């Protein structure tokens, strides 16, 4: 029997699978326009790996969780992240910072169970989407932007709003500011938002970063410096939601 977790995020979709013993598969793909197409696509890719969703247990999570017709159960990404991070860290007390494409969440887990969480308000400020847009404006990739930021001096980006921040960045470029400095300003702006959320929520135990940005080591480094706290993450942290989903599929 296979246990599959499918995390349809606003930007990327993640899939993880366990056999009776081990985590045997993790894959990621863009979500694209239609969550339904994505979920069909996933079905095909799982079949290529020898997993027939009709015979497996499937949990869907993420904002597109309702668009996976073959899922046996839907569970929110908040609960799934909790389970996934507990699996990855094996620590009793963790504060998860999950920077998603559309929202940012702070989740406290105690003994693998979510005990408290908050989410950012209904806008893109402080999310992965914000960083992506700013990288586009600067004409670099996300990874390049974080690397540039390491060598830059902070320029304060005053606008919270993604749309206004974009035009602010454009006028900074126009005024001849160094791209490294702008990149640093952009990264600090998002870190500031995360800091506010963390302060509001309270930090218990270690901080653990999940979401697409955890692969950007420069970003993690800047976040550590700025918060003055140790932050751990893992190459698999991006899959925390789908791993958690797959683990919970075992209970179906």
């Amino acid at each position: 029997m296979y246990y599959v977790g499918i995390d349809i995020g606003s930007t990327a979709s993640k899939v993880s699978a366990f056999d009776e013993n081990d985590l045997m598969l993790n894959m990621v793909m863009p979500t694209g326009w239609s969550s339904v197409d994505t979920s069909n696509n996933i079905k095909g890719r799982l079949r290529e790996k020898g997993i027939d969703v009709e015979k497996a247990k499937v949990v869907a999570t993420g904002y597109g969780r309702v668009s996976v017709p073959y899922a046996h159960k839907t569970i929110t990404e908040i609960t799934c992240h909790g389970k996934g991070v507990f699996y990855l860290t094996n620590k009793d007390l963790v504060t998860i910072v999950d920077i998603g494409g559309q929202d940012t969440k702070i989740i406290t887990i105690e003994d693998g169970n979510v005990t408290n969480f908050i989410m950012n308000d209904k806008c893109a400020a402080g999310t992965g989407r914000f960083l992506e847009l700013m990288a586009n404006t600067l004409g670099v990739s996300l990874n390049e932007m974080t690397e540039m930021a390491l060598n830059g001096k902070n320029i304060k980006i005053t606008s919270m709003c993604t749309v206004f921040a974009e035009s602010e960045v454009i006028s900074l470029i126009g005024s001849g500011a160094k791209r490294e400095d702008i990149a640093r300003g952009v990264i600090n702006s998002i870190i500031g938002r995360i800091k506010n959320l963390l302060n509001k929520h309270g930090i218990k135990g270690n901080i653990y970063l999940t979401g697409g940005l955890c692969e950007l080591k420069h970003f993690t480094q800047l976040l550590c410096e700025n918060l003055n706290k140790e932050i751990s993450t893992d190459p698999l942290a991006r899959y925390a939601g789908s791993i958690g989903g797959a683990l919970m599929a075992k209970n179906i």
Partner: protein
Amino acid sequence: MGDYREMWKNLNMDLEKHDILCEALPESFGDIYLTQKNRPDAMNYFNYTLAEIHGARIEEIKHEKDNGKKVVGTFCVFVPDEVIYATDAISVGLCSGSQFWIEDGEKVLPRNLCPLVKAFVGAKTSRTCPYFQSCDMIVGETTCDGKKKAYEIVEEYMPVHVMELPQMKREKNFVEWQDEIKIFIKRMEELTGNKVTVENLKKGIDLSNRKRRALKRLYDLRKNIPSPISGLDALLVSQVAFMDDPERFIENTNKLCDELEKRVNDLKASGKKRIMITGTPMAIPNWKLHSIVEGLDAEVVVEETCTGTRYFENEVPDEGDTIDDLVKNMAERYMNINCACFTPNEGRMDDIVKYAEEYDIDGVIYYNLSFCHTYAIEYKKVEKALKEKNIPLLNIDTDYSEEDTGQIKTRVEAFMEMI
């Protein structure tokens, strides 16, 4: 069904615009309410009042007006219905729960304002609320800055009487509220030409108390596990209470309770999570949070809101031989409503903790209409009080629009998975 266009036209309504509002209701009510399983038969009465909310009830009010009665619109549970009833006038709680009115409200008000305030101003300026159009006067109160200032704008359209509600609960504030009630009595006497007497004020007190008792009976029944009525249905009953003929409302609410009492014996444990909602009011047709919660494996069993317990808790004693005595009784009752407009407001924390025990609550959702500062700030106090009792709490800040429904759903769902 019926053709009410002539009546609406005579009320100087914007028929074209009003039609857009009418268009939305059957579908949303059908989707949210009529898809519920195993509803009590007696809810048919409340379906009826909702379906005829701009029809039969308005016709009835028009008939009363033709017979010389006055109609008074209110926005707040602090306005004493007793006085309105004593002067033989009709009291209607004005609708301000629809996104439909926001656009018109924002034409005259700043955007960063509570949706309830924007909606009631929009309802008036757009001439699409037949209750507003039927009113001879509206009665405001100073429970928040938004409403307080918005009445100045509404006053350009119709007569307004504003009651100054004290914002502390010292002895002198109780006396101040007695004075306000006396000023209101005078204004109602002028409007209706009817004198307030000990006798008719006692009748008004009795009617208001019986209405409170019927609602209290309904809420007490919700303490059963599982509740014999959905939170959505109970909310509708509370909402209808503000607009319906009070005697008929009492009769039908009691009929509903009779049916629920019978149901209680046959219900089997459902395992649904029991949720309390606390915070700001939900006016018709604001069913947003209830429908999200009850779309999951959960039931709303109590609302500590103005469209919930704050409306009916505590009766006004009818002891006394003079109008002054009765006014004092009324002031006592109203000043003991634990609204966030008061400072301090510790009574509200006590209420919430008490209800959490009485209703056997699994989790509390703090419902805050965006830009309602008093309730938003008081969240911290409630959080602290509930933490001490180890009761889980979720904060939802939202308005009437649908754009954040998906996000709220995720939060509420995660909360249910957590508790």
